């Protein structure tokens, strides 16, 4: 050891960095919407109404967490809503022949995993671009649903199957909300506190560099597709249970709402950065906006316009702020 120079670990504390982050800005937006909603409608600040509002985002958010990791790694899965349709159809078909609740859950999860594996194999095994692969499987998975069901619907799920989408753990706290919170924690830990999460960031920033650093890039991406498929299966169980029926058009258009949620949460659509807390807040923002507009009897099409404007607005805000200051 000749000359030892001291390089500090950090110049800015993690706290300072967190305060100046996207997530902080988004949290302020969420609080603003909450306050605005409570002024706009007298029914908003009601425990049961708020509880109902969470159903607007819990199922989508479960998928959004897995999708966030996938997008951070530089890939995307647009087939998630179609996986819900296929998984729900499979469960419905099984329910018709008298399969019990445990069996239905197993089928839902397995179909999700299988679809995720199929996407992952096409992307990592054959090196195809994920956006193209999953646009293809989006039609494929939902197409199978349509072939099986046509204009029919499956009903007649076992009565205890209803718990996943309609049950309450305690007072106004629904099973779905608890599951959402649990999954959020699991994904936050996975992304932010494990070696696997670090690899996801490394791959998203520079996949070649990550490969040359000894990261098994293909394996990590395959696992991410599996997880996204699995979460689609979980969401399919919750949604099917909540609706009590399956039609092939179930969850139509969710893939874009989920991607919107992820991007609103501060995940870079080009990969490399983003956080789970951001996606959690974005889920609440989207849920609150939808619910608030619903209370005001705003039609669905206007809601999607508002969500779209919100996305562009929140993303443009920091840029506009910078331009205004210069």
């Amino acid at each position, binding site marked *: *050891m000749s*000359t*030892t*120079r001291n*390089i*500090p*670990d*950090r*110049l*800015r504390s993690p706290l300072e960095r967190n305060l100046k982050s996207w997530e902080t800005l988004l949290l302020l937006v969420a609080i603003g919407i909450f306050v605005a909603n409570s002024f706009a409608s007298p029914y908003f600040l009601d425990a049961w109404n708020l509880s109902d509002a969470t159903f607007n985002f819990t199922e989508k958010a479960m998928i959004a967490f897995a999708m966030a990791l996938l997008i951070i790694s530089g890939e995307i899965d647009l087939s998630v809503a179609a996986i819900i349709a296929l998984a729900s159809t499979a469960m419905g078909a099984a329910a018709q022949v008298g399969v019990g609740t445990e069996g239905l859950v197993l089928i839902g999860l397995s179909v999700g995993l299988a679809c995720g594996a199929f996407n992952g194999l096409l992307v990592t095994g054959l090196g195809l671009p994920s956006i193209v692969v999953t646009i293809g499987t989006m039609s494929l998975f939902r197409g199978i649903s349509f072939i099986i069901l046509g204009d029919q619907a499956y009903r007649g799920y076992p009565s205890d199957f209803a718990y996943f989408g309609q049950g309450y753990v305690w007072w106004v706290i629904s099973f779905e909300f608890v599951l959402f919170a649990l999954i959020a924690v699991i994904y936050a830990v996975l992304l932010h*506190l*494990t*070696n*696997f*999460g*670090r*690899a996801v*960031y*490394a791959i998203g*920033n*520079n996949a*070649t*560099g*990550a*490969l*040359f*650093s*000894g*990261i*098994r890039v293909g394996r990590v991406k395959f696992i991410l597709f599996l997880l996204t498929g699995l979460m689609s299966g979980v969401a399919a169980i919750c949604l099917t249970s909540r609706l009590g029926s399956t039609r092939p058009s179930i969850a139509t258009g969710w893939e874009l709402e989920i991607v919107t949620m992820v991007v609103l949460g501060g995940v870079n659509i080009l990969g*490399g*950065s983003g956080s789970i807390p951001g996606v959690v807040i974005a889920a609440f923002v989207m849920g609150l906006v939808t619910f608030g507009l619903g209370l005001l009897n705003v039609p669905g099409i206007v809601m999607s316009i508002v969500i779209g404007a919100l996305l562009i607005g929140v993303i443009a805000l920091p840029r506009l702020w910078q331009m205004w200051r210069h």
Partner: protein
Amino acid sequence: MPLDLRPDVSTSDAPLLSLTGVTKTFPGVRALSNVSLNLHPGKVTALVGENGAGKSTVVKVLTGIYQPDEGDIRVDGRPVRFPTPQYAESAGVTAIHQETVLFDELSVAENIFLGHAPKGRFGLIDTATMNSNAAEILSGLGAKIDPGTTLKELGTANKHLVAIARALSVDARVVIMDEPTAALSHTEIEELYELVEGLKAQGKAILFISHKFDEIFRIADDYTVFRDGQMIGEGAIANVSEAELVKMMVGRDVSQIFPERDRQLGDKVLDVQGYEHPTEFADISFTLRRGEILGFYGLVGAGRSEFMQALFGTTLPSAGEVWIDGASITIRSPADAVSHGIVYVPEDRGKQGAIGALPIFQNVTLPSLARTSQKGFLRLAEEFKLAREYSERLDLRAASLDTHVGNLSGGNQQKVVIAKWLATEPKVIILDEPTKGIDIGSKAAVHEFMAELAAQGLAVIMVSSEIPEIVGMSDRVIVMREGRIAAELDRDNITPETLVSYAAGISETSS
């Protein structure tokens, strides 16, 4: 301000382009401090200096990318300003950058005339005129390239010629060449020299930036030395020696460029037999001992990097076996190679070496996470500890370990990549062009470090195209030509002459 661009009938004593008292500061850094620079018509001026001396900044000032804070730019003695690159271009200043931005999917002619293509009726591009003009420029360069070819079909050297053609397509009077030979092979460099001679004969003023002394003394008429943003000295190249230039550049005597070392070879650690690839290389066999530095020399395209990447697992060989410490191993991915103690410092630092958008400590620990973590969970304190240890060992210069690697200089990025691999405690380290494009001071540091690693018992493979480096550092050299081993030379037989002749395939019969 309107410019009068008619060329004066200038004598070569009056500079065509001159800078006086130019200062440029950035937040926290004074990149140029009161520098002057004179470029004469029909002469090549070599601009030399270490990395960070201000060479690139001066190029950016000359080409209108940066505006100087103080000082004058004069063309033909008249003061001018270059508020945008277009002004510099219309004043006849053009630059061939180190890494020129070209467009793979466009044709050669389109690349050459992008932004100033000849227009026909309705303002549409006149393709016929453009192609014939491009053909004219290319043939003037002695390049046999069809202007209609799509750029991606050309090799590196031809792409470089297209970049040069692009620079010359604007009717330049001042040509700036920023390390033009970095990507070229031996014969291509010779062709470039001829081109420079041709430009001189046309009365153009040339600013030639290079780290390679042999080419400076070969091609330049004048020199200007920069150090730490200041002009240290200038004059005719005939009146200066290599040692004097080095002294001006580094501000001290660099008497001995390569470290002396005590060569103690240990046991055989790596054994490669019959490595083969369908297109890139064939029949590569060699062994490597602990503490040994094995040089791999060859021309660009001889298959050295391709072989190394197969050994590291980024491409798969079609045949061949590898043993580490006598045990047969299979390498199908870099992860496999790393787990067996083989690591690779790539030539392409930006893309393959470091992950620019991640902080230093995360880059350093990336392949060692299994060691710094516990049951798959990150332990930041352990990561900082490991990153600090190796950053300090390599004398890394950075504001903090949390700084993004992309914000570091080239030399420091290279240190991060090396630190990353040393932290895995490897058995064999492969360094691919480890000192390419870095300055003399950093080069010496890398060489010294390499010697230290070998002394500690690490086996080093060094791929290099720089003969002095191969001669100065290697215990043994393998010369590759057209994908095969052309010769294996012992310490005593490594001379520039033998290297060049084996690489070029001249002395096939001599022993």
